[in-house]
């Protein structure tokens, strides 16, 4: 018995490598190392993540504390200007802008990562179901996916966001995440269908391996390439769409822990009188989104066998 | 007076940024020379990667400008092709020089009707008006043996069989009655029966139209059926040139000999075993250090790995050029058979 499974594993392993596994990954890595696009993107992402993790330490002040509140005079549209200890000044209610941006990095990363993970998880379940056990399961799941895909992404996110009676950080994340589920599902199903007829799977099946084993040991691992690419891209999308939600007033109303999209959305009414309140978070969002996109795109190209670009 | 004179043609690949990566530029074609007389059929034979296709492409001026360095000379009817401007070259391609490629499916545009793919050449080079061009195209297709040509005009490549596609390609290449036709492995992608037909077709056409033909192949069988003169290429250099009969009767270069004895022959006694060439191209040594074939060569002697052999008239058989220190002798051939 063990002997047999070992044999299969070895077999499938070889097939996997020839398909999408190690060798291709290695080749991809070789291409990436030389790709300036990737290096720039990776640089941005790493910087951002480090910042996000360390931000509580870096932030000089409590982002929720309106310490400069006494300098806020709505009647004269005055907000705290840059000053010693507050290089960027304060926001509409006198909280230290720099600290908010720093802590914002953390929240933004949180939104991006959680949304992506949830979308990924959902897609993984649906896609695996459909891809693995075709038949009516496939049909049902894919119909559902089609329904979701039949609404433009951001619109769907906004709709979902609006449908929560009481918006908060997690409804935002959820709204953005749900939109991504069908995308991932499609992706996984596609690549698994492609594999169902590939040699190593057939071989494994021929040797009578249990369906589950085939799916999890052989099919899933080989489908991950495109999924990883998609995930990096989704991270960027999630961050941007979260900002869109905030702009439409469907964001997280509790702004004690700031998130860049939220900061941008809240700054919309003072964008001409206090542009810095909008431009700082906007700038951060653009750079970070760009970073993830660069990484995603260069990954995609590197993993795409026939790409010479 | 030759129609095409290729002299000392060399093509060097330079991978982008090779200075940084320190890769040595590779010579795909290394001082190749040969002539093609009007109406003559010349074969370029060799394993894949020996540089025969690159030779053809460089003559046609189809090699990408970037990353390729073409030196030497290729005189067509007295004009130096290699020094022509891009525009001048375009004017000649399709008119004086035609080319047929290996894979007929991918070589035809899938979304353009066959007819247009033929007529566009006529329009380009002869300014033939659409209607008339269409008629000529039909005749062409008919000539290359495509049944019901009128209907075919409006059809798309995927609707034709492999053989038909190759015929169409040939029709395109010959549309403007070029004086030189280069066929690059025209039959490799087809199954055997079709191969024969296509070869026959080519033979017939060049005879009728008096078109000179360069036949590029790895298949000596093809050569046997078609070529007047054969150039055997190895690692970017011509190693043996001979008239067809001489070559098949008495291959002199061990590589040629190897090729011949590695293909089954109908006239050989039963029970004879095929002798494959040992090793692979990977074992080659650079020509600078001697004979590139030496490592695989049964006849290799010490000089082969010390002195680079030069192209020279065969001491035994005249009318033949040879690049070898220790050619195959008659006795050896006997020993083998």
């Amino acid at each position, binding site marked *: 018995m063990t002997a047999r499974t070992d044999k299969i594993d070895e077999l499938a392993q070889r097939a996997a490598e020839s398909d999408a596994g190690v060798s291709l990954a290695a080749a991809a890595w070789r291409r990436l190392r030389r790709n300036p*696009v990737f290096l720039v993107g990776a640089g941005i992402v790493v910087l951002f993540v480090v910042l996000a993790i360390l931000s509580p330490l870096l932030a000089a002040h409590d982002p929720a504390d309106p310490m400069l509140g006494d300098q806020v005079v709505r009647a004269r549209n005055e907000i705290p200007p840059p000053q010693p200890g507050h290089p960027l000044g304060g926001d509409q209610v006198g909280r230290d802008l720099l600290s908010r941006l720093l802590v914002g990095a953390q929240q933004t990363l949180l939104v991006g990562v959680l949304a992506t993970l949830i979308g990924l998880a959902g897609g993984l379940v649906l896609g695996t179901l459909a891809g693995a056990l075709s038949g009516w399961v496939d049909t049902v799941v894919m*119909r559902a996916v*089609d*329904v979701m895909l*039949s*609404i*433009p*992404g*951001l*619109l769907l996110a*906004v*709709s979902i*966001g*609006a*449908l929560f*009676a009481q918006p908060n950080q997690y409804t935002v994340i959820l709204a953005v995440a749900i939109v991504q589920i069908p995308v991932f599902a499609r992706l996984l199903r596609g690549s698994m269908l492609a594999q169902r007829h590939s040699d190593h799977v057939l071989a494994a099946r021929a040797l009578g391996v249990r369906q589950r084993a085939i799916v999890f040991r052989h099919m899933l691992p080989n489908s991950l390439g495109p999924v990883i690419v998609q995930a990096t891209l989704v991270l*960027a999308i999630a961050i*941007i769409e979260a*900002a*869109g939600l905030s*702009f*439409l*007033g469907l964001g997280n109303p509790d702004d004690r822990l700031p998130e860049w*999209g939220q900061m*941008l959305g809240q700054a919309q009414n003072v*964008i*001409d009188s206090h542009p810095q309140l909008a431009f700082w978070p*906007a700038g951060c*969002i*653009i750079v970070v*989104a*760009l970073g993830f*996109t*660069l990484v995603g795109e260069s990954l995609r190209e590197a993993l795409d066998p*026939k790409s*010479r*670009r | 007076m030759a129609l095409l004179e290729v002299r000392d043609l060399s093509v060097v690949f330079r991978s982008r940024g090779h200075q940084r990566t320190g890769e040595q530029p590779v010579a795909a074609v290394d001082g190749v020379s040969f002539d093609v007389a009007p109406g003559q059929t010349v074969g370029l034979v060799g394993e894949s990667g020996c540089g025969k296709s690159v030779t053809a492409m460089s003559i*046609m001026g189809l090699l990408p400008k970037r990353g390729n360095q073409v030196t030497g000379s290729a005189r067509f009817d007295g004009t130096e092709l290699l020094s022509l401007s891009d525009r001048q*070259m*375009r004017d*000649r*391609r*399709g008119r004086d020089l035609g*080319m047929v*490629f290996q*894979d007929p499916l*991918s*070589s035809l*545009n*899938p*979304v*353009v*009707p066959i007819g247009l793919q033929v007529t*566009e*050449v006529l329009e*380009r080079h002869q300014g033939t008006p659409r209607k008339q061009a269409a008629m000529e195209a039909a005749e062409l297709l008919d000539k290359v043996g495509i049944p019901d040509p009128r209907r075919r005009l409006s059809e*798309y490549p*995927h*609707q034709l069989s492999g053989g038909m596609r190759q015929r169409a390609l040939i029709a395109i*290449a010959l549309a403007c009655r070029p004086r030189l036709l280069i066929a690059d492995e025209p039959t490799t992608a087809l199954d055997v029966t079709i191969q024969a037909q296509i070869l026959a077709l080519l033979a017939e056409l060049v005879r009728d139209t008096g078109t000179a033909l360069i036949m590029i192949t790895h298949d000596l069988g093809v050569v046997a059926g078609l070529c007047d003169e054969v150039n055997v290429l190895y690692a970017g250099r011509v190693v043996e040139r001979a008239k067809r009969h001489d070559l098949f009767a008495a291959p002199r270069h061990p590589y040629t000999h190897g090729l011949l004895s590695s293909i089954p022959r109908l006239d050989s006694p039963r029970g004879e075993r095929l002798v494959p060439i040992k090793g692979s191209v990977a074992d080659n040594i650079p020509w600078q250090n001697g004979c590139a074939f030496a490592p695989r060569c049964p006849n290799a002697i010490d000089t082969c790995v010390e002195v680079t052999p030069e192209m020279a008239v065969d001491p035994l058989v005249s009318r033949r050029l040879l690049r070898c220190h220790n050619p195959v002798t008659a006795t050896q051939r006997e020993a083998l058979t």
Partner: protein
Amino acid sequence: MLRYTVRRLLQLVFVVLALSLLLFAWLRSLPGGPVSALLGERITPESRARLTAELGLDQPIFVQYFKFLGRAASGDFGVSTGVQPGDSAAAIFVQRFPATLELSVLAIVIAIAVGIPLGYLAARRRGGLLDNLSVVGSLIGVAVPVFFLAFVLKQVFAVELGWFPTTGRQEGGLDATRVTGFFVLDGLITREFDAAWDAVKHLILPAIALSSIPFSVIVRITRASVLDVLDEDFVRTAESKGLTTQVITRRHVLRNSMLPVVTTIGLQTGALLAGAVLTEKVFAFPGIGQALAIGFERRDYPVLLLLILSAAGVFVLVNLAVDLSYAVIDPRIRTGSGGGR
């Protein structure tokens, strides 16, 4: 082909029905809604109860849904409670759809007209300055939040420079005649050219903002696809025929690289509605998008329901159109046989 189309249309019906039930149930289960919308601040528990009963909102959800379907069948999707209180949702759609259509068309036209040539040139001069610029540019284009771009455009070109109007579809004072609801068209056919021009001026900034994402995507896809086609054998064949570069580009390269591009254009066109929600809000442009934005804010459920449904419908239809247009571009699909590369 026909069977395929029919199947897709059926699928569309299915999608819309499923969506409508989903949305309807969810919307109804939410707080706020018609009653609060109608009574606003003056609401009292007593009046709430009365109105809820009057409107039959106390009946079981399915009863309500089927009543809704019944009314919907006769084109009655309920009456707006927030966007344009008192107007029927259908009327709002009919009246605002042309606006968004005008906007989307202009946006997608800009995206295509600039995006495809740029993508092609980038591919032709691969690795060159233009190439790198267009690639990075297109990536940035995706990274910039649409509404932020819209804000900046408006601030710079409308408020500071005053080249364009900041908001709306047309000056009220023009007293333009309405025929089709497409202001530009109306202006042309009624020969009120000032009105048409004014409408165009109102379109430009929002359209640019809206086109940013489709533009970026189109550039990228075109470039990639052209690069693929460029080293296809048949391009080499075309070269070997000595054809002129223009012919090779037009007939052999572009036409073959258009398939993926068309797909993208389709998807992007459908997705424009999402962008329109943001852009139209920024420019107070009275289209579907703005109605959605206000609808979300004021919880105008009848309008939201209809607009989201129709958005989905349009999206599906556009994609169907795209699939069909493959046949136009790719004979292998039209003539059934062959499959594809």
